[in-house]
């Protein structure tokens, strides 16, 4: 009855769909079996499988080729197409790598933060969120992006709300996120509706073929506006970021680490895909979206969010605002509208995901032991939790962009992109905003190492199950600052794919 052989080669033809379907099946299976330890194993297995799949797909497409997978055997543009090129394969690798490291951490972390009866559902929501993020990155169908966006968003709201057992404010944070996220998703789907109205198609490659003929059309220009604002809410472009700080602060620690490293990154990828692959890059530039919207708000985010971060009393909130500033750097790369700029965005996607996940996991370890991330209460923890504190310092250095950390590579490419355009003032702004990062990182370091502990409560070092995943990412954030072979070549290939400078094998069938 089953005709296909179960060899790696036979399965590898189905990698694009397996990437999404394996976590998708694991999620209801976890509910169906209903045992927490099995749910964890399912989630972890699905995550590792995803990592293997995304890595082998990236190796396949890094030379500029495209994998196209037709769901249900229906050829695009009629059927839904999954389309993997260097850009989304790279983002898929980021998502699945982070998930694989965060999950073992999550197991220990949520045992203390979430009640036992909700832990199985935590893994289900986590898997659904993971599915949604992978799906919105891998799909080549514009409406399918919306569907997966909703899958990931709805499960994210639940994940954030699960933090209510530690702090009730998680509920308002989740509700806030729900309202803002729904508005974002609505804007996005209105944009898609306008595009569908004008072209009659939802396949991204097909849209890209049809849109240039309509470039003077107001409806199409409006569609771009709606899509940018909709995705802007999801990825927290500076004035649309209001949901982010509270959601990241009050969510369970593992959720924060996962979301900070993945959710906004997937949204940035979708924004890039729409700006440069679906709409023609020249069209997007001609509307002024890059110069008048993305560029100024990126610069404001770099400074305003960093300055706000300096004045936060909660370490999680400091890091959340720093995330908004870092998103500013990614948007800045987009606004250069050059190959180097997109490369900077893509490489910062990776480096920031690794760095911020490491930092949030280290803070999570502190929350695990002390129950708080309130900075004044962390005084003197440097001696009591040496490994966790060292992880925060190392992550902080990467956040600032000290040489020999991953953050340095991002800023280096970003600055060289600015200089390439002759924007020397922009290079100075990037350095100046990094100096603000020095301030908020130093505050934390000072509290951890130089202040005397308040009270005489003895805090022990976090358990190894938290420390090992954290340190894997800390070491990664240093490693990728020294060896940029994988990241830089992938980011360049991704920029090629997004700007269409790579040979675009249109509709190369599976």
């Amino acid at each position, binding site marked *: *009855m*089953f*005709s*296909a052989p179960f060899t790696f080669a036979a399965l590898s033809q*189905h990698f694009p*769909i397996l990437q999404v*379907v394996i976590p*998708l*099946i694991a*999620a*209801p*299976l*976890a*509910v*169906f079996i*209903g045992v927490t330890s099995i749910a964890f194993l399912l989630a972890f297995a699905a995550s590792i499988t995803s990592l293997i799949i995304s890595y082998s797909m990236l190796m396949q497409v890094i030379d500029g080729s495209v994998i196209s*997978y*037709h*769901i*249900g*055997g229906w050829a695009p543009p009629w059927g839904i197409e999954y389309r993997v090129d260097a850009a989304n394969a790279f983002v898929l690798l980021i998502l699945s790598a982070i998930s694989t490291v965060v999950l073992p951490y999550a197991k220990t972390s949520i045992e203390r933060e979430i009640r036992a009866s909700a832990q199985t559902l935590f893994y289900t929501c986590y898997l659904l969120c993971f599915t949604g993020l992978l799906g919105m990155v891998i799909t080549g169908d514009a409406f399918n992006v919306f569907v997966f966006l909703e899958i990931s968003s709805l499960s994210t709201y639940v994940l954030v709300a699960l933090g209510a057992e530690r702090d009730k404010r998680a509920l308002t944070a989740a509700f806030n996120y729900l309202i803002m996220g729904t508005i974002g998703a609505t804007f996005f789907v209105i944009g898609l509706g306008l595009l569908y109205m004008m072209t009659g198609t939802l396949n991204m490659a097909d849209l890209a073929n049809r849109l240039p003929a309509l470039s003077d059309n107001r409806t199409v220009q409006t569609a771009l506006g709606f899509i940018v604002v909709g995705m802007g809410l999801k990825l927290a472009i500076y004035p649309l970021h209001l949901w982010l700080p509270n959601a990241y602060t009050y969510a369970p620690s593992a959720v924060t680490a996962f979301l900070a490293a993945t959710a906004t990154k997937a949204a940035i990828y979708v924004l890039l895909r729409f700006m440069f692959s679906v709409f023609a890059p020249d069209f997007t530039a001609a509307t002024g979206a890059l110069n008048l919207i993305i560029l100024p708000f990126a610069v404001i985010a770099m400074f305003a969010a960093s300055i706000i971060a300096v004045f936060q009393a909660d370490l999680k909130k400091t890091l959340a605002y720093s995330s908004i500033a870092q998103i500013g750097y990614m948007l800045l790369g987009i606004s250069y509208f050059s190959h180097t700029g997109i490369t900077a965005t893509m490489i910062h996607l990776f480096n920031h995901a690794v760095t911020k996940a490491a930092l949030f996991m280290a803070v999570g370890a502190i929350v695990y032991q002390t129950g708080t991330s309130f900075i004044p209460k962390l005084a003197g923890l440097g001696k009591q939790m040496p490994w966790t504190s060292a992880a925060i310092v190392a992550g902080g250095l990467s956040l600032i962009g000290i040489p020999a950390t991953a953050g340095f590579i991002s800023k280096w490419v970003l600055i060289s992109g600015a200089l390439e355009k002759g924007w020397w003032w922009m290079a100075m702004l990037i350095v100046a905003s990094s100096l603000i990062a020095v301030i908020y990182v130093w505050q934390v370091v000072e509290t951890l190492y130089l202040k005397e502990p308040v009270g005489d409560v003895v805090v022990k070092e976090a358990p190894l199950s938290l420390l090992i995943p954290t340190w894997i990412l800390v070491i990664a954030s240093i490693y990728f600052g020294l060896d940029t072979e994988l990241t830089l070549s992938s980011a360049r290939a991704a920029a090629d794919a997004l700007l269409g400078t790579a040979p675009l094998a249109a509709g190369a069938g*599976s």
Partner: protein
Amino acid sequence: MMEHHLILRVITKILIAPILIFAFYVQFHGDYSPGGGFQAGIIFAVGFILYGLVFGLRPTKKVLPEWVVHKFMALGVLIFAGTGVAGLMMGGNFLDYSVLAETPQKGQHLGLLLIEFGVGTTVAAVMISIFYAFASRPPRISDEDW
């Protein structure tokens, strides 16, 4: 307290069986006529919700405990995804129904029936579960309670 509404209770008892049968009709006739998993799932859930409204939450949960509803929620998604994977195992792409039976027509028919059944199962379970969630909320604190 329900003892008073005699007419409601009798009518409900008469109605529930036809409602459930109609749900199955909409479910399995959905590929020939208007209908399908979403509509059928809602109608099926309505049978239980009606019972819950008239006879109260406790007897309804005795008939259909909450944990069973949760399992069915997951089961529906598994049926849907499993149909897709079956297509993949039998030499087609994911969700390719044509390879499920001897001829593509039969395969498409079978595939559609299966995924609609998955959709119906999940929709019914989700609707009942939402009803349970809202109905079992503790009453709001009013001013007199202070």
